[in-house]
Structures are given as structure tokens and as C-alpha cells.
């Protein structure tokens, strides 16, 4: 057997070289596809009338195969991941008839928000193993427990609860069809910013799939900030808590006094 293989090798090599040469001659543009995304702005400000918003991200495929594009076999998933912060998950159990927080697990590096937009339903793009490997999707995003040596069953339960609660609060979301191809290689992704979107540096990531195979990823940063007044109020509360408290009390005195003058009914 070994011998047959050995003597066949030069022949095989010859054929392969031929093929390669031929391919280069036919389609010199076979370079792997890549993906680019661009944000129209690198900062979103939260003003006093903010009640959630849609964020549009444009992107393009480089070196897309027109054939594959026409058949709609390119898929794009765009993710907007919020800043990571530690989170405590608490569980209530029944004690003396009352529902009381009894157990808790701390997780570090939990993205405060995670919204996904896809071209199609997730299961139609690629398989679960791929999503898991890419840590893509709310159920796969990396969540590190503070106590790494904890009971894996408990950690699993609490991390699932964390994802479920985040979904319920609208901070983890998914929009099927949120990514649309505008032409063969230009696409637009629409992501939802929840009314309680966390401020900080968010990362937009775009994943390109071809026939269910992951090809390439690209990312861009986006800062979500409170607008001037909101930011000043927040800063004042954080850095000058005492003076802020005095200001709040003075405001209450003035409002109470003015209210008495304006609305008096006796």
C-alpha cells in the first residue's frame, strides 16, 4: 500500500499544480472574502428625551463571489456588545412563606447589553457548534463566574438565569432580518438601543458566513454617552455627593414654596 501511494505522489502533485495554474488563469480574483463595517458616528449621546433608539450600521463585503451573493448564500450577523461589568445574580427561595434572596453568584465581565441582528433565523445560518465556538449569540456570550471552582450545575443555572433576565429587560435582544443586503455586497444592520442602554464603550462586531461557514469578522467601537446636562448631573452626584444633596434639598424648598404660591387654594 505504502509503495503505491509513494509512486503516485509525483503524479498527483503534477495534477494539482496544473489545476492551480488553471484556476489562477480563469479567476485571478480568488482572494478570501472579507467584511467591513462603518458607523455613521462613533458616539451616540443620550439626551433627556431619549427613550430607546435604532442604530444603523452599514457594511460591505470585499471580494464577494457574485454567484454566491446572487443565490443569497452569504449571511451576516452584526452584534452590538455593551461594556462589561460585574453582575450579582440572586435567587429567591421560600423562607417562612416569604420569597427571600438566599443564593447568589457573582459573574465578572458580563456585557451589560448584547443586541444581535441577523440576515436570517439563526439556525438557518450555521450550526450551534459554530456559534458556541465564536461565542456568538446571547446564549453563548462569555460570562465568567467570579468563583471558578463553584459547582458547575449551580453556575450553569445562574448564568442561564442571568441571560434570561437580561433578555426580559430588553438588554439582550435579537432581531431576525435586522441585516439586509442592499446590493450584492452592501448591507445595512439595524440594532435596537434599549431605553436603559448602558453608557460606555460598545463594540459593534460583524460576522460573515458563506454557506454556513464562518469566514471573517470585523469590529468597530461606539461610545454611548449621556448628553451635556445628564452627564453633568451624573458627575455631580458621583463626585460631589454632599453638594449635590444640598442642591436637591434647596430645589425641594424652592419648589415647595413656589408650589404653595402658585397653586394655593385656601
Amino acid at each position, binding site marked *: 500500500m505504502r509503495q503505491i501511494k509513494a509512486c503516485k505522489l509525483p503524479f498527483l502533485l503534477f495534477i494539482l499544480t496544473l489545476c492551480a495554474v488553471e484556476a489562477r488563469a480563469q479567476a485571478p480574483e480568488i482572494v478570501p472574502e472579507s467584511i467591513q463595517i462603518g458607523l455613521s458616528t462613533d458616539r451616540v449621546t443620550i439626551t433627556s428625551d*431619549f427613550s*430607546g433608539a435604532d442604530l444603523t450600521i452599514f457594511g460591505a463585503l470585499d471580494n464577494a463571489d457574485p454567484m454566491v451573493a446572487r443565490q443569497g448564500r452569504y449571511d451576516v450577523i452584526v452584534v452590538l456588545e455593551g461594556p462589561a461589568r460585574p453582575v*450579582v445574580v440572586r435567587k429567591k427561595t421560600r423562607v417562612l412563606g*416569604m420569597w427571600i434572596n438566599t443564593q447568589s453568584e457573582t459573574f465578572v465581565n458580563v456585557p451589560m447589553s448584547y443586541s444581535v441582528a441577523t440576515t436570517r433565523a439563526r439556525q438557518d445560518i450555521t450550526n450551534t457548534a459554530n456559534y458556541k465556538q465564536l461565542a456568538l449569540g446571547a446564549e453563548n456570550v462569555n460570562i465568567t463566574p467570579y468563583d471558578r471552582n463553584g459547582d458547575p450545575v449551580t453556575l450553569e443555572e445562574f448564568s442561564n438565569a442571568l441571560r434570561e433576565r437580561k433578555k*426580559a429587560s430588553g438588554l439582550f435582544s435579537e432581531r431576525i432580518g435586522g441585516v439586509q443586503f442592499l446590493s450584492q455586497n452592501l448591507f445595512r444592520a439595524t440594532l435596537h438601543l434599549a431605553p436603559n442602554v448602558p453608557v460606555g464603550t460598545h463594540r459593534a462586531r460583524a460576522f460573515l458566513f458563506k454557506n454556513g461557514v464562518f469566514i471573517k469578522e470585523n469590529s468597530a467601537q461606539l461610545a454611548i454617552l449621556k448628553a451635556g446636562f445628564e452627564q453633568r448631573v451624573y458627575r455631580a452626584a458621583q463626585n460631589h455627593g454632599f453638594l*449635590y*444633596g444640598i442642591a436637591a*434639598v434647596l430645589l425641594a424648598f424652592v*419648589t415647595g414654596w413656589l408650589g404653595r404660591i402658585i*397653586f394655593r387654594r385656601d
Partner: protein
Amino acid sequence: MGIYLPIAEMSVNMVVILAMGAAVGFLSGMFGVGGGFLITPLLIFYNIPPAIAVATGANQVVASSVSGALVHLKKGTIDFKLGTVLLVGGIAGSTLGAWVFALLRSVGQLDLFVSLVYVALLGTVGGLMLVESVRALQRARTGATPALRQPGQHNWIHRLPFKMRFRQSKMFVSVIPVLGIGAVIGFLASIMGVGGGFIMIPALIYILKVPTNVVVGTSLFQIIFTAAYTTIVHSTANQTVDIVLAFLLMVGGVAGAQYGARAGQKLRGEQLRALLALLVLAVALRLAFDLFVRPASVYSLTGL
């Protein structure tokens, strides 16, 4: 109409908050209480984080108490000396309360403790008030004259040392129970985000036997400063006062209070007390319901 709250870091409906403030203001004007015991639970039902609801509620109470106390200032029904002594106790209690508040928050039992205190206190006060006012209503119907306070009747409170004379209230009483009442109410105020009027008024009437006409004014006067102190302590220690939320509540509250006060004048004292008792009991039941009925999700998330 959405408005973004810079401290709570969330967007709320401005009309809902203004209406909430106005409704509570109306009731507080009608009954002569600050209304903190209604505002804080309402904010929590509206998904404002409890820590922010409590601190912001205290701030709102300052405005409604100032508004209410001005009426009593004009009528001369405030005992400043009694109010000041109550306040000294109140400040001590409030300091301790804010410390306990931060401790409970870090161990994750703040919500439970706040709910338990609310259920226990509102349930007790509401129940007692209801019984008392129903009896008064029955007496009024049968035409019997209510038993008047007899001047010579003293309880153990009046045998304590360190006596002080309060001219306006026509009292000569030890400062220990006065400071004690102030401290307990200050403690509760900083944990519950309330002024404590609904406990202060019965305590002054039944324990210290303060004449009814100066009770409400003195209580409001004292609450202004306890609530102001609570606001400042929470703001310094926990950074949980949302000034935008508080302002909306205040505007709704002071407007509603003036209309409520006029509506209150059309009702008789016992009727008012019975209605207030029912309201207090309703809030207690609603909170007890949350405590004893299985929540929609047994899990909750908090930042570190």
C-alpha cells in the same frame, strides 16, 4: 413623553411620573401627611431601582412638607421647640438608618427589609387607625360625646427625668421619649424614603399627648429637616438621589397637595382618618402580596 433619568440611567414616561406626583400630592394634602409612604412603593412598582426610589422619595417629601408647613406657619400651629428636639433625635436615627441601608444593600437584602418594614408598619398603623376611626364614626352616629383628655391623667412616659417645657403644646415632659420618637422615625425615614408623618402623628397624639391642633404642623416642620438630612446622607453615601425624577414628583406633588387640602376640608376628621387608614392598608396588602406570592422570576440582577 419619555424623559431620561441621569442617575437611575433609564428612560421613563414623564406624564406618568407627574401624574404619580399629583395623585400622591392630592392625598397628602387631603390627609396632612408627606406622602412618602405612597411615593416610594409606587416608584418601585414602576421599576425604579429601590435604592433610588427611597432616596428620591425622601427628596420629594422635603418639597411637599415645605408646602404643607407654610400653611401651618401662617396659622401659627407649629411648636418649634418640640420640633427641634424631635429633629435632634431624628438626625441620629437617620444617620444610623443610612448606614444600615448601605449594609443591607451590599448583602442583597435591602428589598426584603424595606418591604417587611413597610408591611409591618403600614399594616399596624393602618389597622389601628381604621379601628379608631370606625369607633369614632359610630360614636358620632349614636351621638355620644368622645371622651376628652383629662388633665391629671399621666402615664409612665410622664414620670421620666430631664423634663422640658413646651409652651406652644402646653406640655411639661421628659426629653427622652421625644428624642426616642424622633430617632425611631428618622431611622425608618432613611430606610423607607418617607418623612414618617403617618407614624409621627399617632405617636405625638397617643404617646406624648400633644394637642391635635399643633401635631400636623410640628410633624411637617420636623419632617422637612429629617427628610432633607436623609436626602443629603443618601446622596453623599450612596449617590442615589435622582434630581430629575425628584423634580417631576415635586411639581406634580405640590400642585396636587393644594387641591387635596381643599378637598380634605370638606370631609370630617373621622371620615378622613378612615379613608387614610384604608389607603395605608391597601399599600401594605399590595406589598405583602409581592412578598408572599411567588414572583414572576425568582432571579434578580444587581451590579456590584
